[in-house]
């Protein structure tokens, strides 16, 4: 029994990281149907900027704040310099632009920072909590709390605020949104800033567990994307549940089957789910009127 509990804790730890990354995908996707493949780089920037600001002598909290703000600015710049000039292009072209942006950001980070692996201390120490013979680190609870907080904030944003509804309206029909007086350019800028900030927050919270380096973005974005697809793209609840489910699936496979097949088993389950429910667990059913 302690084994099962330990596997679940491990799954929660890893899954909460996936969920935080997956949450970052939702806003840009909701505003523009674009899957932003530079999302992993936002996570990397959050971690790396914090590491270097902290190493320069700033307190951790301030360093984290600077990292989140700086990453949000980079997100806005990405929108202004790369996405907005290609406004008329189809979604696929925009997605390809984000792939290019991710390669660019990775290259810049390797030059501005360095190519080594970094970490900063966990927020509340490394002494694990012992529950029923299993252990979980305090930092895991921070990540889980961060994921839940971002989820609640996003949920309120999309359902309770006018701005959030404007974002959804922009995604639904850009022209109609403009006609009712929504500044769609501003909505896009806002969604990139928020997505980048959430990504950076994920990087800040997860770095004491995952470590960070200039190239961690690819792997994180891939897992976060898988989690978002599993839960239903664009739905904050889906991102949260999908991430944690993916983490637990991996941990249980590694624990009970074989650690060799950890990734494979997780992806087979995702394929099965998408086969039966193509829109993901919580995704809205898409209907297209012709």
């Amino acid at each position: 029994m302690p084994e099962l509990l330990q596997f679940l804790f491990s799954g929660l730890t890893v899954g909460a990281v996936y969920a935080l990354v997956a949450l970052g995908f939702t806003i840009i996707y909701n505003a523009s149907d674009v899957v932003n493949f530079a999302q992993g780089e936002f996570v990397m920037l959050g971690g790396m900027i914090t590491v270097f600001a902290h190493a320069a002598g700033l307190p951790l909290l301030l360093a984290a704040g600077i990292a989140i703000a700086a990453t949000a600015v980079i997100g806005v710049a990405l929108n202004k310099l790369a996405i907005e000039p290609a406004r008329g292009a189809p979604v696929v072209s925009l997605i390809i632009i984000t792939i290019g942006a991710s390669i660019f950001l990775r290259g810049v980070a390797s030059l501005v920072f360095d190519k080594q692996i970094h970490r900063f201390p966990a927020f509340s120490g490394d002494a694990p909590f012992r529950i029923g013979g299993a252990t979980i680190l305090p930092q895991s609870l921070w990540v889980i709390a961060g994921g839940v907080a971002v989820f609640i904030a996003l949920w309120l944003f999309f359902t309770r605020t006018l701005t959030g509804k404007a974002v959804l309206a922009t995604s639904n029909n850009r022209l109609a949104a403009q006609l009712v007086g929504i500044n769609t350019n501003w909505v896009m800028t806002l969604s990139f800033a928020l997505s980048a900030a959430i990504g950076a927050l994920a990087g800040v919270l997860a770095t004491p567990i995952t470590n960070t380096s200039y190239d961690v973005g690819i792997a994180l974005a891939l897992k976060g994307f898988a989690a978002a697809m599993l839960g239903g793209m664009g739905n904050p609840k889906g991102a949260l549940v999908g991430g944690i489910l993916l983490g637990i699936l991996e941990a249980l496979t590694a624990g009970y089957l074989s650690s060799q097949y950890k990734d494979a088993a997780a992806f087979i389950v995702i394929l099965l789910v998408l086969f039966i429910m193509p829109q993901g667990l919580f995704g809205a059913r898409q209907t297209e009127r012709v």
Partner: protein
Amino acid sequence: MTIRTLMSTAAALTALAGPALADINIGASISETGPAAFLGDPEAKTLRMEVEKINAEGGIIGEPINLIMYDDGGDPNKARTFATRLVEDDEVVAVIGGTTTGTTMAMVPVYEDAEIPFISLAGAVEIIEPVKEFVFKTPHTDRMACEKIFEDMAARGFSRIGMISGSDGFGKSMQAQCKDVAEASGVEIVADEVYGPQDADMTPQLTNIKGSGAEAILNSGMGQGPAVVTRNHTQLAIDAPLYQSHGVASKQFIELAGSEAAEGVRLPAAALLVADQLAEDDPQKPVVVGYRDGYESETGEDVSTFGGHAYDALYILKAAIESAGSTEPAAIRDAIEATSGFVGTAGEVNFSGDDHLGLTLDAFEMLEIKDGNWTIVE
């Protein structure tokens, strides 16, 4: 301007920009970027720094070195292209590099065909086994690391071993080598787990190893995985002591794992890491202290054994060219193979016709991490 004047201007410019004919062209293909950047980066910095130093001191046999270095990004395809370019366009007399086993093996056929001596900086034993005429390497092999670790485990009375390995090239290769030599070393592998190189939590695998009754745990891997394993090992309060491989032999590992979690972890490594703790009369002491001080003051980074491999390769080459008194690739090759008693950062190197590694198990020190620092296990 006519085409003719354009061409002659271009030719004149090339002649001006190009090296004087007498320069010694030494090639290098290093993974300065990409997944192996943490290995390639110190290697490239070391080569640039040491070549500059050698040239400032008058070069080799009176000629300056012209270092032609390419960044293959850890991609074997690129490495092979650069190998061809080094041979055909740059007309190098010898090549250093191949940061990873993958890039090295991709380049080997090119240099074997062109008969250019090649000193690799990668770990796996297949680079020099079977012996290839023009291929040498400076780092210890993973098989030697396994033997050294098992020797220490057996000496402490552990016979049931749990293994946890990264699924990247280094981890897999060492996992296979360790399983191969386990029986001869008198240990039995009772648990064999793997993890992905980017994984953030290995507690499920370690929980299973704990349940298997292993008396000691060996983690073969490099990069960030071993740091996570070390933290999880402490988190789960596992009694069986943890051994790491030579793949994590840098200060960065202790920083990533945290000195509390890393306390008591043992690993085999070159003397470079414990330069200050070597006996005064140790022949390696002046070499490793000199290289470490030079590297740390030049780059402001902690020295790692990876850069040391590049240092060894360059100075083996320098000594060989000096003793050959010639820059003919074939003569250099013969002189490299005749290297004996060369003291480098990895240990004493004695090449021979059937040994292109030239290191023995003695070249490894067994280190234990105490209070966030390395100490030599007696």
